[in-house]
């Protein structure tokens, strides 16, 4: 099973910190998973111009191919101006319309304000659903006060990250088995 984590902003530290916890948890709880964390701050991506993702070179080609090869994707995103950052939206724009078909996608949201709690629900999930993702419905919402100097200091958040990682792996496994059983039934 290949899982790709995305740290969805090119600035700031909190989303990356949360994704480091995801990585640690995944390696500990599911060592068989091939996990790759992509921090968009480390890559220089061009804006989508509508071409097929196979036709992009450089960092853009690399990141899109990693995502397309994944069985599951864990998206970490901050909230900027009451929405997801442009860097993350660009990732969606770079991919094909049905890019997340047969993929499980889960979400971790970091935010400066609790008033942003529903933004993932109302803005991120519809994009994922449109792109045919199997969405892990519950996401982890982390506020500024839960961090202290690049560490998560609220143990409750740690528990939620553990559950999110477990759910992502279990659902990926489950959907794969269901799909394989159904395809077996088709008999061709």
């Amino acid at each position: 099973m290949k899982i790709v984590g995305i740290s969805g902003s090119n600035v700031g530290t909190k989303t990356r910190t949360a994704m480091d916890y995801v990585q640690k948890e995944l390696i500990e709880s599911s060592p068989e998973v091939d996990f790759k964390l992509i921090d968009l701050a480390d890559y220089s991506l061009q804006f989508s111009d509508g071409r097929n993702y196979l036709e992009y070179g450089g960092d853009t080609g690399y990141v899109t191919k990693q995502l397309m090869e994944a069985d599951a994707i864990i998206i970490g995103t901050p909230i900027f101006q009451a929405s997801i950052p442009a860097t993350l939206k660009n990732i969606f724009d770079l991919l094909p319309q049905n890019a997340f078909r047969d993929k499980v996608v889960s979400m971790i949201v970091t935010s400066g304000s609790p008033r942003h709690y529903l933004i993932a629900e109302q803005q991120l999930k519809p994009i994922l659903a449109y792109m045919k993702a199997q969405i892990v419905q519950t996401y982890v919402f982390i506020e500024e006060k839960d961090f202290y100097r690049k560490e998560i200091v609220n143990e409750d958040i740690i528990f939620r990250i553990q559950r999110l990682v477990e759910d992502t792996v279990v659902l990926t496994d489950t959907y794969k088995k269901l799909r394989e059983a159904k395809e077996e039934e088709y008999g061709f």
Partner: protein
Amino acid sequence: MKEYRIDQSKGLEFGLYTLGDHLPDPFTNKRISAQQRISEIIELAKLADQAGLDFFSVGESHQDYFATQAHAVVLGAIAQATKKIKIGSSSTILSTSDPVRVYENFSTIDLISDGRTEIIAGRASRIGLFDLLGYDVQDYEALFEEKFDLLLQINKEEIVNWEGEFRASLKNARILPRPKNGSLPIWRAVGGTPASAIKAGYAGVPMMLATLGGAVTHFKYTIDAYREAAVRSHFDPATLPVGTTGFFHVAETTQQALKEVYPYINEGMKLTNGQGFPKQAFAQAVDKRSIINVGSPQEVIEKILYQHEIFGHQRYLAQMDFGGMPFDKLAKNIEFIGNEILPAIRKYTAVK
């Protein structure tokens, strides 16, 4: 329809089209050479000609896993190798070509083929060729519309006066040679959405509509939009041919056909489009309401007749060589088409 060399008293036309893809056979993981692939395409055209099919066309794609970048050259060889079958492009990417050169090539092929040649012009579904050939993808739409207008003008007038943005002006330019019968049928290639179909309708040119998968009725909206746009531009839709294209494969039984074709489509799509084709869509293909023409000959006949009832189209183009399908399977399919499918669909679709 006569202008487009279509005789409806003979029924729905049936043709083959190839994208000229050059992919490994997923069962053996081996890929034939580009030379062999091209010679097999020419051979396939000969078989189609002998079996009495109406049309054979070759597409242009400038990327990995394709072999007919120079599709007009391949069509030149096909023109020489065949006798009766109509031939054409599917499609010519006009946006990144000079319409004058395209017309010179295709009118020459028309002379070689003794008046059997057509152009299907498209905008490219993959845009890597814009970089390769030195065009800006920002001009995607403007390039095509301007060049398509010029191509149509060259087809109508032997002496052309023209000015535009993307090509040097033409002043009393004679575009030669002229095709055998004075003009060529020129179609507009259209993807699944109505927007491009509407443009074809406004221009009053025949439309070749690509279908990958989905319900037949879904594509009816696009065809309706095309015909309505034609009416708004004062063209009579009864004079404008509509063609559809899509996946095709027949075998003794439906299950056998699905088993034979699915891995080629799925693996081929992964390499050329970066994503496989859902098996579920092929499982649904057994339903006649699905646009995918895969099954036993009898089932595919029923599907094509159902599509004809809904669309009222004049030509169907089957894509059966995608993904490295071995040549013996293609030859077998042509046998089924010639012996069983053509007689049946002609019988039931001929306009009396």
